[in-house]
């Protein structure tokens, strides 16, 4: 029973990581019809940035966090103003599938390259926000950072799902993704939404990096793998539904934990990807993916 409980906990923890990234991806896809493959890199910058300022340069932790998140927001803003503005507003992004994958993929390369120079190539983690050993509840090992991440994922996912369903802003966001020109005609500034949500999701990803880095540790190229797991989880939410993305992320994390725990420790990950690929190929309708024009 304890073993089962610990598996569930570890599954939920890694699932929460997928979930946060999936939410970031889904939210922005909903508005801009593009996948943010740099989301994982923003998480990496959050973790390593705070580590650099607080641990190496001895800044106050709170100040370091605020500074790093501000820098992340600035990177997102500048990227939107320069690249996305040209890409979307000049019509370059009309080549559907290319826009979906490759614009932010290039951003990810740049961010990794810069991080390699700034943070070096050694694994680090930001100082724990809730320091202390793992909590022990009747034999269940609960990592404090894990709890923070799970809480963050649920909070963000539920909040966004509610916001999308019940507020005018949420509906306006959905309208931007479904038909940007139509949205503009009825007075929704789809560009401002695209920019705002891109910055918001970058900051959310960065926050997750800071919260969760004691669990995983980060190095300059950790972002790509994180983004990929986010893409996979978001795919099972049709890329557009943040609430479902959280559930998909948690479910994938649990599946991974059970496969590693009960089937094969060494090949748990392999099995996980096998199952996910099989579902994608044989039951693509489960994902409810949008149709893409080429």
């Amino acid at each position, binding site marked *: 029973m304890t073993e089962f409980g610990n598996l569930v906990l570890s599954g939920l923890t890694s699932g929460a990581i997928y979930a946060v990234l999936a939410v970031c991806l889904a939210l922005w896809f909903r508005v801009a019809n593009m996948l943010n493959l740099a989301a994982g890199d923003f998480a990496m910058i959050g973790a390593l940035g705070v580590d650099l300022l607080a641990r190496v340069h001895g800044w106050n932790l709170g100040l370091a966090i605020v500074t790093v998140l501000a820098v992340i927001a600035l990177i997102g803003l500048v990227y939107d103003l320069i690249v996305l503005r040209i890409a979307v507003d000049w019509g370059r992004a009309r080549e559907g599938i290319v826009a979906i994958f490759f614009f932010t993929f*290039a951003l990810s390369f740049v961010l990794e390259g810069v991080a390699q120079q700034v943070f070096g190539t050694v694994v680090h983690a930001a100082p724990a926000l809730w320091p202390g050993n793992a909590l022990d509840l009747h034999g269940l090992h609960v990592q404090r950072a894990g709890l923070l991440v799970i809480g963050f994922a649920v909070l963000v996912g539920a909040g966004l799902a509610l916001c999308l369903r019940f507020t005018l802003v949420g509906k306006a966001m959905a309208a931007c993704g479904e038909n940007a020109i139509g949205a503009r005609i009825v007075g929704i500034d789809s560009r401002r939404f695209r920019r705002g949500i891109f910055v918001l999701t970058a900051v959310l990803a960065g926050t997750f990096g800071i919260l969760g880095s004691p669990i995983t540790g980060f190095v300059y190229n950790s972002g790509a793998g994180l983004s*990929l797991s986010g893409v996979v989880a978001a795919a099972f939410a049709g890329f557009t539904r943040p609430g479902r993305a959280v559930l998909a992320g948690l479910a994938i994390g649990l599946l991974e934990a059970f496969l590693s725990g009960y089937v094969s420790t*060494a090949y748990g990950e*392999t099995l996980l990807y096998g199952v996910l690929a099989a579902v994608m190929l044989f039951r*693509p309708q489960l994902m409810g*993916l*949008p149709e893409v024009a080429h």
Partner: protein
Amino acid sequence: MASAVGVALAGVIAVIALQGTYYDSVLVLAIAYAIVTIGMAVQIGYSNQLAFSQSVFMGMGAYAVAILNTRYGWPVPLALVVAVLGSGVVGAAVGSVVTRAPGLALALATVLFPIPVTTYVTYSTYLGGYTGIGGIEPLWAGDSASSSLIQSGIVAALILGLCVLACGRILRSGVGLELALSSDERTAAALGILTSRRKLELFVLGSMLAALGGSVFAGTQVVVSSDLFSQTTELTLLVMLFVGGRRSLIGAIVGAIGIQYLAGSTTLVNTHLLVIEGVLLTAVLLFEPGGLAQIAVNAAHAFQQRGTSQHPTALDDRGPSVRPTGPPRPDQVVPGPGGRRPEGVAPTLVCQGLSRRFGGLVAVDAVSLEVPRPGLYGICGPNGAGKSTLLELIAGGLRLDAGRVVLEGQDVSHWSAAERAQLGVARTFQMVRLMRHRSVLDNVAVACLPSHRTTMARAIARSDLEQARERAHAALTRVGVAHLAHTDPGRLTLEGQRMVEMARAIAAAPRLLLLDEPASGLSGAQRGRLAELLSGLGEEMAVVVVEHDLELLASIASRLFVLIQGRLRFEGDADDFRRSDLVRTELMGLIGGAAAAGEPG
């Protein structure tokens, strides 16, 4: 042919000129990658099949050569052939599963492939674990390391030339044209193209070229490691392809060499490689999606144009024989005008009780109608009456809930759209769907390729594209837009687009032509020209026109059908139609405005 020889020659000369130095090894490595990227240019760039599994097949080819050579003592060239063929078999097995999935699911699933494979290879002691496998013999061993490098490099360059030759011939054949259309499944099916087969062939081609690149890698680098399988390799390959030019074989080679050169050059560049690659990729996507290859082509064009006083008219300089107006192809069996049809031959189209519901809505409700022989048949009705759905049911784009569709005595109710198209059903769409990046002529030629049933491999040996282009030109002439043959479809007016689509529909000499609102958006004068054309076509084939312009329909159609709320409410000739109370009460009130606006001139 010329480009293939050019690539091979340039490669051989460069390999020799660099004299086995460090930069020679960079070049030879780039050639191995280039073999992979030209396969990706065909698969991803040209045909929009977004498969991200090339690194897996590249690793597979490399490891197969390494193991066959080091463990079993096979000579490298033989190992290479076996590795490529074996990867083709694996590619066919994997492809038969993955290419059935829709495009985005294919992309997402193949993105995952490298992860478990890399893990497995890294843990497998048989495959050399972390360190990989070393001590592989070179493709063509020499006395020293540098002479081995030069000789193997020459072989690699020749192989690259052969790949360019094969891929170039595929792209310039009718199969290449089908590939360009294979991502628009609806149009492809309407033209009788079996996309599932082309997609599988594409996947196998991409896999085999990736494995070949990997084998050449093993035979020139003489050591392989599990990195080859990884997503990092896949990402590098994608950057090479996109920066070089994803729609061009030469571009793919340029990209591979350029990126490999950057990676292998000074430490300053090498340490900032990720940033440089990211910026290059962004710049290409933003400013020239065609990549470096397209930039070079544009520059060459600009240079040429400065030389000539006027911009050259591309029209007719390729010289497909231009036939004057008249029936498109005398050599084709076209069912003649109604009278010529021998008695006792089955009617062109019989629909019996066709029904289709969408949820609670019955869009088409037990519609029975008959199109006995060539001629013009009109279907009209208010918006939402089920007219387009009825056309889809006849063309096979939608599944029937009940009823039968019989074409020339053949029950095709359970046939796919592509099969019906091959039997002689052609159609146009309400929204015009034409291929970008291909000329108007090729957009029409794709409909009359005799090669729908040939294999991709055969296209390497023989191209039937010129023949198809001739027929396409005749069809364009027939609808009066031959002067647009070499235009980019994106620059056509709406009338031009509709006429091109019409030419595409009639190019294959169909027996049944289904037109969905051909006159919508056209002016009065344009409608007049359309009416004339349709009357002419009605002499040769059965033309079923869905249209809101009642006056146009009544003036040309020999028989009219009125569909209201999914039910067939009227059937008769033009005089009955004009006198009908139903038409006056139900239709004129609803769409009289549209009819008045479209007075044929």
